[in-house]
């Protein structure tokens, strides 16, 4: 049966927004790799994006994550949630990509802000949306990795803090502290940009 591109897009949006794998329930054994990909590819993509991987590099980074997933599947801790494990892998891949992107920017002299704005416009449906997204990229880049991870998992991925703490491998109280600190820093950055005439 043939289906339209719109139907496929609609199917992916439903799958992407609905957590197929309960994030706070450990998996006794990993599902088949194809199922693991189908259930979590969108989560990995979003995570990489929010951890600073440029849109142009997302396909490569996503592929890298799942190659590592496939290679390390035997090391999966059966008491952990699948997305906790995937987040750890995505975090390391994202860190590598950011390091390489930083070296490339310095090599070719591309201003960081311009790079981000051009990247954000690639996939955003409107200029305003792109500008808001680019501003969030800049502000998230100002957070250290620990605060950034907690912030994106709680505010954007809407994980419960207990799961966030497991994903970033810190005590729950530390996760709360990091979230509070990240929020404070993000609001300050927003106010600063407003004073400079920039708006999301």
């Amino acid at each position, binding site marked *: 049966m043939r289906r339209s591109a719109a139907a496929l897009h609609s199917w992916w949006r439903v799958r992407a927004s609905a957590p197929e794998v309960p994030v706070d329930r450990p998996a006794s054994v990993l599902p088949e790799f194809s199922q693991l990909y189908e259930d979590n590819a969108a989560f990995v993509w979003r995570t990489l994006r929010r951890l600073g991987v440029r849109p142009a590099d997302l396909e490569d980074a996503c592929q890298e994550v799942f190659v590592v997933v496939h290679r390390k599947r035997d090391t999966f801790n059966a008491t952990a949630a699948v997305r906790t494990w995937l987040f750890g892998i995505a975090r390391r891949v994202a860190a590598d990509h950011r390091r390489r992107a930083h070296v490339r920017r310095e090599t070719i002299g591309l201003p960081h802000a311009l790079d981000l704005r051009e990247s954000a416009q690639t996939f955003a449906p409107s200029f305003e949306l792109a500008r808001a997204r680019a501003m969030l990229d800049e502000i998230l880049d100002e957070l250290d990795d620990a605060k950034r991870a907690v912030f994106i998992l709680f505010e954007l991925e809407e994980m419960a803090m207990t799961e966030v703490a497991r994903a970033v491998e810190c005590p729950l109280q530390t996760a*709360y502290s990091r979230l509070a600190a990240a929020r404070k820093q993000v609001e300050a950055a927003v106010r600063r940009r407003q004073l400079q005439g920039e708006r*999301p």
Partner: protein
Amino acid sequence: MSDPRRWLDPDSEASPEARSMLAAAKRSDEPPAERIAAVAARLGVPVSPFAARPAPEASGSRPPAAPAAVLAGRHAIGVKVGAVLVSLGLAGTAWYLHAGERSPGEPPTRFEPREASSAGPARVEPHTEPPALATDTADSPVAPAVDAVPARPRATLAPARAPGLGEADLVHAADAALRRDDARAALALARDHAARFPAGAHTEERERILIEALVRLGQRDAARGAAERFFARHPTSIYRARIEALIQ
């Protein structure tokens, strides 16, 4: 301590500007379906709901594999999503993940508890790599001239070494060359990677690219030899099904 109200909640303490930034991210961070499908195709993973899965009783035999020359251009499940999705034709080659029948000694291809899996060779981790594939393929007994039978129109970009690129960038460049149908550049870059990073973190992908480039250049015997060495070193690699389809 209970979780605070999320900033996207209209009643939260977040400023309207911060909330609108987060809302922008929620809207624009979702991956387009075709990009997810493109990554799936590169991994050789069938994920579309429209993929025709074989019946369990038929899963012992591998489905017919798409010839290498059309792998990038044929879509086995008839969905019109654009050029990128046609590479989902590789989906049909990954049914080993669902195979019920395995010959003795064949490594498990499903996720199974270690204690339940039948005996099979331990997965070979690519930490101790043999000499670079560049040497292996050069020694192939049959190596027709590169110019003899190009499977695709020759690309305008000449193959080149890339001494300034790091390991991952080199593999990415080789893969990008393949995707723009420049098999010669892909082969050169893959050989460059093999020479500089024989035991690198991206060895499996490098070898997959090299084998595919050889096939596209008509060097099928060299490709077959490289594939056999690949299977010996990486028996449960994610790229196994794709490479098997390429060399058939």
